[in-house]
C-alpha cells in the first residue's frame, strides 16, 4: 500500500504531470502564471478543490450511480457535483474563514469549471481507485499542477526582462516555453 501510494504520487507529479503530460488545466497554466504569487495562490486553491471534489465525486459515484447502474451519467453528475460543491465551499469560507477566502476567493469561481478538477475525478473512477487512493491521486495531481504553475511563473518573470522580437512578446513565447517544458517532462517517462 505504501509502495503504491508512492508510485501514484511520483507518477502523478512527474511522469504524467497533469498539465505537462495530460494537458489538463492549460487555461490557468497560461492565464494565471504571470507572477509567482498568483500562481501559488491558484495552485493551492486547485489542490484544495481537487482533493475535496475528487472525494465527494467518488462517494457519489460509488453509492449513488453504481447501485442504480447509472455509471454512464458520471460526467454530467460530476459537473453538477463539482459546481455545487465549489459554490458551497466559497460561501462557507466567506463566512467562517475570511482569511482563506481572501487568499483563494478570486480563484474559486475560475476553478469551478476547470477541466483538471473534472478530469481527475473521472480518472479516479476509470482507474478503479478506492477512496484512499482517490484522495492521494487528487493530492498528487494538484501538487503536479502547483509545480508546473510555479516553474512557469518563475520562467515568465524572467521573460519579462528578456529582449524578445516584437511578434514573440506575450503569449507566443509562453506557448513555446510551455511546449519545451512538456518536452522536458517527457524525460521522466518510464521511470516507474
Amino acid at each position, binding site marked *: 500500500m505504501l509502495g503504491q501510494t508512492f508510485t501514484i504520487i511520483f507518477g502523478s507529479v512527474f511522469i504524467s504531470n497533469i498539465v505537462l503530460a495530460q494537458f489538463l488545466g492549460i487555461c490557468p497554466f497560461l492565464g494565471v502564471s504571470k507572477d509567482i504569487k498568483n500562481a501559488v495562490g491558484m495552485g493551492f486553491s486547485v489542490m484544495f478543490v481537487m482533493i475535496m471534489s475528487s472525494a465527494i465525486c467518488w462517494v457519489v459515484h460509488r453509492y449513488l450511480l453504481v447501485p442504480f447502474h447509472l455509471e454512464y451519467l458520471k460526467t*454530467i453528475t460530476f459537473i453538477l457535483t463539482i459546481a455545487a460543491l465549489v459554490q*458551497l465551499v466559497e460561501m462557507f469560507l*466567506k463566512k467562517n474563514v475570511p482569511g482563506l477566502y481572501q487568499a483563494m476567493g478570486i480563484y474559486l469561481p475560475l476553478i469551478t469549471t476547470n477541466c483538471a478538477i473534472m478530469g481527475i475525478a473521472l480518472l479516479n473512477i476509470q482507474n478503479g481507485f478506492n477512496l484512499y487512493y482517490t484522495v492521494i491521486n487528487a493530492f498528487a495531481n494538484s501538487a503536479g499542477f502547483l509545480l508546473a504553475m510555479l516553474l512557469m511563473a518563475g520562467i515568465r518573470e524572467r521573460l519579462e526582462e528578456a529582449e524578445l522580437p516584437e511578434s514573440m512578446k506575450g503569449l507566443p513565447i509562453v506557448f513555446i516555453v510551455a511546449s519545451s517544458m512538456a518536452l522536458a517532462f517527457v524525460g521522466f517517462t518510464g521511470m516507474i
Partner: protein
Amino acid sequence: MLVYAIVVLAALGGLFGAVLAVASKKLAVETDPRVDRILEALPGANCGACGFPGCAGLAEAIVNAGAPVNACVPGKEKAAEAIAAIMGRAPEAGLIRKVAQLHCNGNYENVKTKYEYRGVIDCHLAVTQFGGPSYCQFGCIGLGSCVRVCPFGAIVIGDDRLPVVDTSLCLGCGLCADQCPQKVLDVIPINQRVYVRCNNRDRGRVARDECESSCISCGVCVKACPSGAMQLITNAVGSVSMIDYDKCTACGVCVEKCPRKCIHLDPPIDPDVAICPKPEPVAGGCANCPLAEGCGSKVAS
C-alpha cells in the same frame, strides 16, 4: 432504467439546489452596500496613491475605518463628491494634489555619455553596469522604467533622455518614485514652485566634471535661504541640496544664488490650486510681490 436516470439526476439536482439555497441564507455575510457603491464611484486604477491596498481597500476603509472621502487621488473632485454623497460626510480639507517631479537635469547636453548601453531596456539593469551609461552615477538613466510603471501614461521620455511628466495626467500616486532605481523622481504638492533638479552626491570638482548642472554641495543655497528651507542632506554616499517644502516660500533667492543653476523656479502648475507660498503677503500687498506675475494665489485678492 430511464426512469432511474431521471429520478437520480433530478434528486441530486434538487438536493444540491436545496443545500445551496439554505447555505446562501445561513452563510450570508452582511456586507455594507456602501462599500460596493463607493467601489463603483472610484476610478478602479488600483494605484495605491491613497495608501490603502487597491480601490477595494480604500472603499472598505472609508466605510469602516473613517478614511477621508477624498482620499482617492486619481478620482479628484468627481469621486470625492460621489463618495461624500454616499457617506454623508464632507471632504477633508488640506489635501493638495501632488505630481511627480524629476530631481535631475542630466540631459544629453549637460552630462556626457560614458558608454553606449545596449542591454535590456530597463533602468534597474543599466544601473548595475558601471553605475549606468552616463557620467553621473546619481542621475536619471533615461530608459523609462518610470514610463512603464505609470498607470496613467503621464510620463514620456523626451529627446534629451529625461522623462517629462504631463502634470495634467499625473495623479501623484508615486509608483514612478518607488520604481526609479536612482530615486530622482519624487511626488511634490502642486502648490510648490522650487525644485532642486539634481541628485548628485559628489562634491566640488568631481560633481562639476560629471554634469554641467550638478549640485556641488557648496551650501550657498542653505546660507542664502531666508526661511531655512534649504538643507544639505547627507547619506552614505555624499550630500545634495534638498528643500523642506513645509518651509519653502518660493522666494527664489536660492535659484538666483545657486552657482550651478540646478535649482529651478517653475511657473505654478495649476493657478487654481496655487496657494500663496508666503505665510504673509509682502508689505504693500501682492502688487509688491516679486512673484506676482503668473501667481494665481487666492490670498491675492
